[in-house]
């Protein structure tokens, strides 16, 4: 459960690192890039976005573009970038560790 929640934060932070995105865009990207294996419902996604915002890792802003209704865009903060980098390192170490164990067994 911790692994899954931590990875959800990692996913969101990495998706908004490149550019600000709104909630629906984030959920669609996660679904598309995971090939449908990871899906976030509204009731899970937004609480998570608000939590990251409260921690200061994301910053949300209402943006109104002409001809459209306003949407809330999220971008990663400096602190968020540091957390993302640290989580990515941890994730890569974890994956490398798993790979070393399973390759040894199957070697």
């Amino acid at each position, binding site marked *: 459960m911790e692994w899954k929640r931590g990875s959800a934060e990692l996913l969101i932070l990495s998706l908004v690192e490149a550019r600000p995105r709104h*909630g629906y865009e984030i959920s669609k990207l996660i679904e598309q890039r995971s090939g449908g294996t990871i899906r976030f419902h*509204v*009731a*899970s*996604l937004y609480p998570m976005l608000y*939590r990251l915002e409260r921690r200061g890792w994301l910053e949300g802003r209402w943006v109104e573009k002409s001809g459209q209704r306003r*949407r809330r865009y999220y971008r990663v903060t400096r602190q968020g970038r540091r957390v993302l980098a640290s989580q990515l390192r941890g994730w890569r170490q974890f994956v490398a560790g798993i790979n070393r164990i399973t390759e040894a067994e199957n070697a």
Partner: protein
Amino acid sequence: MPEWKPEIVRRLGPLKLSPAREGEIAEEVAQHLEDRYQELLVTGQSEGAAFRTAIDELQGEDFLAHKLRPVERDLYREPVALERDSSNFLAGILQDVRYALRMLRKSPGFTAVAVLTLALGIGANTAIFSLINAIILRSLPVRDPQHLVLFQWESGKWPPHFSMTGWQSDFSFSYEEFKEFSAQQNVMSSVFAFVPLGSNDQNTTVGINGEPTLADGAMVTGQYFSGLGVTPLLGRGITDADENPGAPRAMVISYVYWTRRFARDPSVIGKSVTLNGIPFTIVGVTPGSFYGISVGTEPDLWIPFDDKPNMRPWSMAPGGTDSVFTERDWLCLNIMGRLKDGVTREQAQGAFEAVFHQFVTADWHPPKESDIPHFILGPGSQGLPVVQDYTAQPIYMLMVAVGLLLLIACANVATLLLARANSRRKEISVRLAIGASRSRLIRQLLTESVLMSALGGFLGLVFANRGTPALIALISRANNGTMILDAGTDSRVLFFTFLVAMLVGILFGLAPALRASKANLLSAMKDNVSAVSDPRKKHRPGESLIVVQVAASVVLMIGAGLFVRTLANFKSHNFGFDQRNLITFGLNPTRAGYHDARLVNLYTQLLDRIQVLPGVHAATLIQNAPFSGWSRKNSPVSVEGSAQTPSKSGMYWQGVGPDFFSTMGIPIVLGRGIQRTDTAASPKVAVVDETFTKKYFPGGNPVGHRFSLSSKYDPANSYEIVGVVRPAELTDVNPGVHPKGYASYAQFPKTLGQMFFEVRAEGPPATIVSELRNAVHQADASLPLIALKTQAEETGEALSFQRLLARLTTIFGLLALLLAMIGLYGTLAYAVTRKTHEIGIRMALGAKPTNVLGMVLRQGITLTVIGVAFGVVATLGATRLISSMIFGVSPYDPLTFVAVAAILSIVALLACYIPARRAMKVDPMVALRYE
């Protein structure tokens, strides 16, 4: 399109979020569901199926609230608007304060400007209030001051003379009266008297280790210190035993004097010094907080009451061979007392009234019963009012000035708040629409403004703590450097500052809060407000505030202008005598035992010695140094053979030396001046001025006539008029038109005391100072020179008060102008920003940039002109209140009014110019897209 929000809001209900937060979440989630719904429709699902699939994203009725609860718990939560549960009130206030702090932190620039503006206004008010507190409100620093009483009497027209203070409502009594009052022991636990040893703060000569120094001394009776409840820091106070004839002469010194002269040496107790040549022993030192019984003055030392030729109350003898102890109508003492426990002032008043009435009837000989003065036992907690009399009016005037400054500061900040409220109208409108009550919203907005003014008040207190000592130093210099005040911050000052800050916060916050809370949701949700402003639209509150600021600035600036002109008029005024190269110093040889003929001889010999010194052009004597504020004023004047009723207003009367008028440059128009031959052995003569002549001998020649200084012409004590001189103002820089008379000092040996030498140097006065000192030293080394200074310095000091007023009012006027212009600039700049869309339309339709410039300038100038008009009307009503403080200029002086209006208009034009130029440069294409 499906309605998503009701579904979402229903699921958020259990969280009891603030309407704003709930609305925000609902909007965001609704947008997500709508996107999902549209995506599903594109894939071919029916509307109903797509709706159900989208709603399933919410995962049931409780899931969303369950997931959000831990996240939303720590965010700002506003109590639900419609709730009226009073137990939430305190929690609500605390939340309002936290929210207000956040809002202030979000716009640091705005907060800084507002807080600083308020700090200036509140700080100035606190500084002046500190003065009022110290001078008028604070009690004496003694035990239970509320039980102290002050003896005084009041009369309408009679008696016409005697009192040393010369006031109608008087505080002076004779020693005999004091003794009779002291006998009333059934109502008083103590009665005590005090009196200065002279009329200035250098009224005694104290010999310390053989060196003569000057000090400010007072005489007190035995119960002074015990009655006041003052515990000496060292040693003891004066007691009844010290008044016994033959008792060792005891002296108590003040903490300040102990510091200044003895470097706080604890072995000062028991030290021998001399006072006017008489040996004394120092027996005590008063605590640092004790300044005597009159705020603003502080004696250096206190000695027991006595009457010796060189040591008596006011350094003046009653006349003839009478003693102060026995002369029943020589009113020289001030008396206070402490009420017995349980006795009220009214009860004690009755006991003393009878005593006083009897005394006056028997000894003052009132012409009729209705002339008898009325006795008053007044409250004594603030001691004897001395400085209050001449500082009250200027201080209250300054209070009005800083009040106006605060009004301008409030109006300025209110303008800023109005602009800011406008930019928050969407937020406020949503909250109102969702259910927040208007009163709740107003409370929150007021919390922000009160918090801002509390910060301003705190900073203002810091400003005042720095500013008040500087102000006291200025006032003290204006009072010949003798005012000693402790205007520190006590609980009363703190409370005043707190109260002002709270009232100010509500005052400037209320209008913007009321206005902001009326926001209409529909118009607020549109970004572009009215495309073109309707000229018939009623006048915005921001503009009214500008008019108020400009009007208040006009009042302050005109006041400043009048005081500046007053100062200039005084500086250039011809006081009737030649002040160039004139140096003055005083001597009081009575303190060294000189009296009568011996005193006259000393003065005569010294004068002769000084007149032949190198560098001296001429020298003479005068009883009171010009502009020292003192002169004898005897009334009435009775002219021999005149049917005129004796004038009760009398004349100003001075003893002077030979060649006085030639030395001082006062022209003699008839007869002669005072000469060496006018001695005690020759008939009494007087020289009068033209004002006296106009009053008592209109159209005639007074030379050869006689007059006396009494209510009925007394030939035995009359004077022959031997000359008439031009009027000269020798007493006060603010001259009134009073008759003046001069007599020869040598003709009054018995009452002669301190005199001042007026020496005209050939060149700069500083060149003869050391020779003057030597001349005095050679005559008698024990005589210190009193107040040695050039006449120009004396005049300059006399003008210190006018200089102070001119300086302070100018500072306030300039501050007011600065604040008002910042307000004007801010209002116009904001108006230009709001109207950018409108300006774009106008220019797109053909308006030239110069038209736009004109539009903005017109708005600014119109506001300024209206403000100036109101300001001028207000000033016309107000300036007559300061007419007694200005000189040589009318309170309605057209030049000052026109100059201020012109300066304000020019500065306003500059303040309008920058926003006007910005408006001119608006690109119509950008402006039309501007939202």
